[in-house]
């Protein structure tokens, strides 16, 4: 916690921008995901290894929390929609996920991700360069590979990334689950 508080201002600002990316598709409000990381550290649920920077650690924990939260939400939607209530005889009702329900959950996750990617592409409908960069990034390309794949030089690539960050920064978190 002290390490987070002691970060230089520009790194704190970067974490806030990165948090906005990982909040998408979750129920976390602005600041809540970073707060969750701080709480897990303070309550000794997560430890930053000595050889890992606090920035890298915080980003990884945010990513992990976001992943599990998105997974939980889609599982709830898919399983509860598909499961049939089972009486236990004691008056309780449980929901047991069938294999079909689990497959439905995976399908739901994939459909949501697909929808999210479609929305991202739509944001840049008239910006072909940005679309090329998005496609490259979603293939995991970096540096020279990304330049070769998109056919953009470094200056154009940086400018396209800036446009993507700007639009994503204002539109992306809107996809939070209410």
């Amino acid at each position: 916690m002290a390490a987070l508080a002691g970060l230089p201002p520009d790194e704190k600002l970067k974490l806030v921008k990165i948090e906005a990316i990982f909040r998408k598709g979750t129920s976390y409000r602005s600041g809540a995901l970073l707060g969750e990381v701080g709480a897990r550290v303070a309550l000794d649920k997560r430890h930053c290894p000595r050889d890992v920077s606090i920035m890298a650690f915080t980003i990884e924990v945010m990513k992990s929390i976001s992943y599990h939260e998105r997974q939980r939400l889609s599982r709830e939607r898919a399983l509860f929609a598909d499961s049939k209530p089972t009486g236990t005889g004691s008056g309780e009702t449980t929901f047991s996920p069938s294999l079909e329900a689990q497959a439905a959950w995976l399908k739901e996750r994939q459909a949501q991700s697909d929808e999210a990617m479609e929305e991202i592409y739509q944001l840049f409908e008239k910006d072909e360069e940005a679309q090329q960069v998005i496609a490259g990034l979603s293939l995991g390309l970096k540096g020279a590979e990304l330049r070769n794949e998109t056919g953009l030089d470094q200056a154009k690539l940086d400018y396209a990334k800036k446009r993507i960050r700007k639009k994503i920064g204002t539109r992306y978190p809107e996809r939070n689950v209410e």
Partner: protein
Amino acid sequence: MSTARKTDPLTELELFEDGLVESILAMSETELLDEIRDAGGDPASILREFDAMLVAVKNSCAIERLRQAQESVKAFHKRVVAISDDERTAARKKLDAPQSTAGEARPLLAARKGKGASDRDTKGLIDDYAERMRLENAEGTSDHDDG
């Protein structure tokens, strides 16, 4: 564009987000501040909110840790069984026994500031001794059971 989209949308989205994160990490301070201001944000106010959030989390975690400690103490006390009067009497008898030995030191009733042991010391000693006797008896019973 030659890039074909991957078939797994989960991986695709994850890689795209990783790429975005890397591009944010690579930003210069000037670029970062300009981008925040261009989007209508105030870097100083964002930083104040960030620090305030950390303080709030720290405080709520301190309360949570205190609550956990209190729960642990309660759980510990539940496990401790009080010493009964019979056990105390038996311990007292055993402790008093060496007194009859004339001339021998009474190591259990240690002098306290030269004035001898207080009642509280003696009671504590008796309770400790009674607990020890209880443990010894329990061990004896369990040895007997095992054998």
